[in-house]
């Protein structure tokens, strides 16, 4: 909300400086968002008197003026305004001044051969109005040489953010009241111009919906003259960022901006029969002042006459019955609408207005009569006419909330000691009534006060939050206890292990496009109001976000990208924590040592997968490599890692070329995904945590390695062979490692050659030849069960 300090001082008697005012506003919870000083824009423009006006020798429409600037010799100024004449006073812009309307800096110049030392300005040039027919004419008593900004009283404009709980401060008067309570001055009484009401209100006013519109007051003023508003009113509205329209409209806006009280003026000539607050008929339509037509439903309150709807209650008036320059008789409406209903209606219609903002937060129920008197008085004073008596339908809420307050609560909750009489003073200055027993009766306009804590807030914010001293939280004895849960520890370890493996952690959007989600089996959650089609479906996988990042990286010319993310997959039943990584581009660049660049393959992904799972504490030696990595992957170059057929910990492999194509990425690209919840973690038992590990001493005897090369049917996997070989003798064989895979010359079709290095560890005594031979035979026999035969 914006207002000028001049306006503020209409309501607040104060000597405070601008800085004091803004500091206090901030301190009491009316946050200053900005301060604008219009006089800065008018710097260099002064009041000047035209001494003489002669015709320009070479131009019919120009005159050469001699202008008294208040100091020194008169200046010669060329001017094209028809109203420029000797003896008048106006506004002179001297060289160096910047014209607000176009940002041009004035310079000394020759106009058609005659020197001009400045410019006499129109209202439009100074952005004071639309008037450009001539230069500004100032009254005879305007002081020559005086700064024009000071002369016209353009004062700094303060922009404050009013929180939704304080509709009572959505008017300058309310802000003045708060400032007065904070000791910044004295609140001035509301001055209502006197007028005589005569005769009953000629229009029947009713509320047929006492829930939605508990009170509807109105009166008619006959014989008004609408037209432009006086300067003081225009200036105030402009300082609030409102465009002056006409006196009648401006005065209703003034009531709203100065007192937080929306009201409406109808052109009586356009009404027919009784004016009624009622629910809209389903499907009923109305065109309102923004020139849009809205279709209403039965939950919405409207103001209507016999023929049609004239107002969406509390939100916006109808286009048909608004006042115009021709209006002579008006019906003033001042009503109280149920706040929640206004909010619901506004949201349903998607219609925002200054009136709605105030009504849905709650206007002052005690300000109907006074507001109407004030509005009437101002209209009669400025637009003339004769006011009728007030017609009142219904009554606004009048029961004031009483809160049992304990002043000790201020220290208990607010952490600051405030003397009881000061607490009482603060509350009373905000119009709370404080009984001797601290029963506090709240003003009706303070809809936000629910209980004692709200009164603490009132006391503390006026007393000053800066008075609250820091107090240390009580601290448990000793060193702080660990707090991280096993899942949090798991994430931390995975994250740092992944970064340690050379991957960059990325954070990508939780939402992706529908198409992307489809490629990963479809998303379970689709936003009703997405910000764009690209951010519509909650991701079922972390890969799409990473692939988009990879695509962008490649578009930017990067040769490789290794990125991972730890985050949630959003499934119907739950949000599943997951890790995904994408390895794209060059695994190793071309090099003087290794020759050509090497792209990533499925084994790179497997290696990362195992490194991470091991870091996470998964039993990697018991993991089984199985199929069904999913449609995102190359069907022949992907796998899953499982502990038992149903417990899938990870998927990895090369991504499907069709998927990569949809991202415009040149493959191959390797990827992996880990399900964090599938990783088993040890549960802490009761009692102290045990840190001790099982006992171990490295075996003293030298280990022995033996190589075996087998011819194996092509469809037997290396993993099965390793398991068979290792299982051949569980005490002596401590490791079996594939070191060669070969097909081709010397290997019959349908077979492959697999070579193993088997490590044997003697326990008590070194092996004898006979023992070694026996173990070898067991290995060969175990391999034979899978159809493998030892190569000769």
């Amino acid at each position, binding site marked *: 909300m914006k207002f000028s300090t001049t306006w503020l001082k209409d309501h607040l008697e104060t000597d405070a400086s601008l800085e004091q005012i803004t500091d206090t506003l901030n301190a009491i*919870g009316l946050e200053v968002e900005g301060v604008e000083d219009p006089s800065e824009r008018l710097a260099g423009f002064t009041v000047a008197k035209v001494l003489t006006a002669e015709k320009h020798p070479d131009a019919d429409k120009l005159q050469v003026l001699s202008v008294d600037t208040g100091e020194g010799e008169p200046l010669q100024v060329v001017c094209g305004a028809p109203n420029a004449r000797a003896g008048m006073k106006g506004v002179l812009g001297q060289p160096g001044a910047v014209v607000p309307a176009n940002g041009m800096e004035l310079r000394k110049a020759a106009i058609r051969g005659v020197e001009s030392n400045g410019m006499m300005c129109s209202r439009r040039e100074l952005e004071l109005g639309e008037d450009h027919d001539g230069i500004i004419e100032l009254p005879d008593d305007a002081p020559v040489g005086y700064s024009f900004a000071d002369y016209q009283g353009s004062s700094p404009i303060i922009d404050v953010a009013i*929180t*939704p709980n304080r509709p009572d401060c959505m008017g300058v008067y309310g802000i003045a009241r708060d400032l007065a309570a904070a000791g910044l001055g004295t609140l001035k009484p509301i001055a209502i111009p006197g007028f005589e009401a005569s005769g009953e209100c000629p229009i029947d006013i009713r509320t047929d919906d006492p829930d939605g519109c508990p009170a509807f007051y109105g009166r008619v003023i006959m014989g008004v003259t609408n037209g432009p508003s006086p300067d003081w009113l225009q200036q105030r509205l402009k300082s609030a960022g409102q465009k002056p329209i006409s006196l009648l409209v401006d005065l209703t806006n003034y009531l709203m901006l100065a007192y937080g009280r929306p009201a409406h003026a109808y052109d009586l000539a356009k009404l027919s029969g009784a004016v009624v607050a009622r629910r809209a008929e389903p499907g009923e339509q109305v065109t309102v002042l923004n020139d849009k037509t809205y279709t209403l439903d039965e939950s919405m309150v409207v103001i209507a006459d016999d023929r049609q709807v004239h107002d969406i209650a509390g939100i916006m008036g109808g286009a048909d019955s608004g006042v115009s320059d021709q209006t002579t008789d008006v019906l003033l409406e001042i009503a109280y609408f149920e*706040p*929640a209903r206004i909010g619901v209606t506004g*949201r349903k219609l998607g219609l925002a207005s200054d009136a709605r903002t105030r009504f*849905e937060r709650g206007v002052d129920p005690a300000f109907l009569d006074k507001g109407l008197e004030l509005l009437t008085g101002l209209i009669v004073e400025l637009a003339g006419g004769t006011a009728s008596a007030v017609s009142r339908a219904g009554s606004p809420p009048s029961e004031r909330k009483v809160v049992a307050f304990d002043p000790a609560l201020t220290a*208990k*909750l*607010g*952490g*600051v000691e405030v003397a009881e009489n000061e607490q009482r003073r603060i509350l009373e200055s905000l119009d709370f009534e404080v009984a001797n027993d601290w029963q506090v009766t709240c003003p009706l306009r303070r809809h*936000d006060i*629910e209980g004692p*804590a709200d009164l603490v*807030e009132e006391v*503390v914010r006026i007393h000053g*939050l*800066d008075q*609250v001293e*820091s107090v240390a*939280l009580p601290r*448990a004895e000793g060193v*702080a*206890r660990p*707090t*991280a*849960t096993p899942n*949090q520890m798991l994430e931390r370890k995975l*994250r*740092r292990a992944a*970064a340690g493996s*050379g*991957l*960059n*952690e990325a*954070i*990508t959007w*939780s*939402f992706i496009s529908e198409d992307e989600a489809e490629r990963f089996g479809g998303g379970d*959650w*689709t*936003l*009703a*109001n997405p*910000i764009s089609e690209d951010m519509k479906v909650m991701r079922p996988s972390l890969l799409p*976000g990473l692939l988009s*990042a990879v695509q962008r*990286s490649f578009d*930017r010319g*990067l040769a490789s990208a*290794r*990125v991972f993310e*730890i*985050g*949630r997959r*959003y499934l119907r039943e739950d949000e599943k924590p997951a890790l995904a990584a994408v390895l794209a581009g060059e695994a*190793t660049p071309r*090099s*003087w040592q290794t020759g050509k660049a090497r792209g990533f393959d499925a084994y790179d992904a497997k290696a990362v997968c195992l490194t991470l799972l091991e870091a996470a504490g998964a039993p990697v030696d018991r993991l089984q490599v199985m199929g069904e990595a999913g449609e995102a992957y190359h069907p022949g170059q992907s796998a899953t890692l499982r502990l038992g057929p149903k417990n899938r910990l990870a998927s990895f492999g090369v991504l499907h070329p069709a998927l990569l194509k949809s991202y415009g990425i040149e493959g191959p690209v390797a990827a992996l995904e880990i399900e964090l919840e599938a990783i088993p973690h040890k549960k802490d038992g009761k009692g102290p945590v045990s840190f001790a590990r099982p006992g171990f001493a490295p075996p003293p005897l030298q280990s022995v390695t033996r190589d075996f090369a087998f011819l194996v049917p092509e469809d037997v996997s290396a993993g099965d062979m390793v398991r068979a070989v290792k299982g051949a003798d569980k005490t002596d064989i401590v490791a079996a490692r594939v070191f060669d895979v070969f097909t081709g010359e010397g290997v019959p079709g349908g077979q492959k050659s697999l070579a193993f290095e088997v490590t044997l560890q003697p326990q008590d005594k070194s092996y004898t030849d006979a023992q070694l031979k026996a173990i070898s035979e067991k290995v060969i026999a175990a391999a034979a069960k899978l159809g493998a035969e030892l190569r000769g």
Partner: protein
Amino acid sequence: MTDLTSRKDAALAAIAAAPSLDALDEQRVAALGKKGWVSLELKTLGAMSADERKQAAPAIQAVRSDIAEAIDARRAVLEAAALEARLASETIDLTLPAPEKPKGSIHPVSQVMDELAEIFADLGFAVAEGPEIEDDWHNFTALNMDETHPARAMHDTFYFPEEDGAEHRMLLRTHTSPVQIRSMKKQGAPIRIIAPGRVYRSDSDATHTPMFHQVEGLVIDRDIHLGHLKWTLETFFKAFFEREDIVLRLRPSYFPFTEPSVEVDVGYSNEGDRRVVGGHGDDEGYDWMELGGSGMVNARVIEMVGLDPAEWQGFAFGLGIDRIAMLKYGMNDLRAFFDGDPRWLEHYGFSPFDQPTLSGGVGARA
């Protein structure tokens, strides 16, 4: 001079002059080989009588050991020379690049979350979590924002068409505050938690992204007041920015779920185009910057989670993680946080070894 002596001298001279290991070996064979002259001399001892042998043997054996020693010595010299020559031929250009190992990195948001966990653990706070797809009861109603509350409309909420079993509208949480509700319901009071995580608002421009990160703080106990809130935030910021000159300014504000509600500003100054936290915002050259919202948990919220507000009270706060990360580590573009550009991640990310610790200071030095 005996014949033996002169032959020995000749052999020693030849050994010393042997130009190569092969030439040396020829000398060895000629002298000490099976048919070498020294070996033959030794054989003559066999035919001698014991006395003769006693006389002749020492001289011959001395010759043999002198020659053997000379050969060893010469061999050592020749081998050293050979090694030196070989090594000289093996010189490589060590300015050539070694194999490169890719450097991984931790995202600044994760790093800062770890820092938060570390600092707040010292103050007795655990890290709590909650769903991002929430229902409107937890996100709004339980936080004292009923359906018609104007503050609800100000949240720019992403909604789902779904309603859950209790006919609550499903949505993306607009703040981390629903974790307060879930944590209090689950674990009651007293409680000290922080809840970092993703939150969502349907807002997107240069400084706003539809997804961002917040951390919620919550303390509920018997005698907690605004002074404790102020201390906690001051203490946190001092630890987080590792400087003692942090000055906070509390301003009254409004959040439906706190009463009184307090906006927290911190003093800062500009160094170049970078904001540096520290100093008093009212001092010359300094200003205030909004850091987050906070306040005493509204009694209605405490009731809503089934606690007795006559017994329990406390504070809550919310801070933007991305924002404090930017302030601390100097990024200026929020959108880049979620772009996944490896170059940005390498530049602004952290080494896996930068695990925040209290003893080392939680921040990672530039």
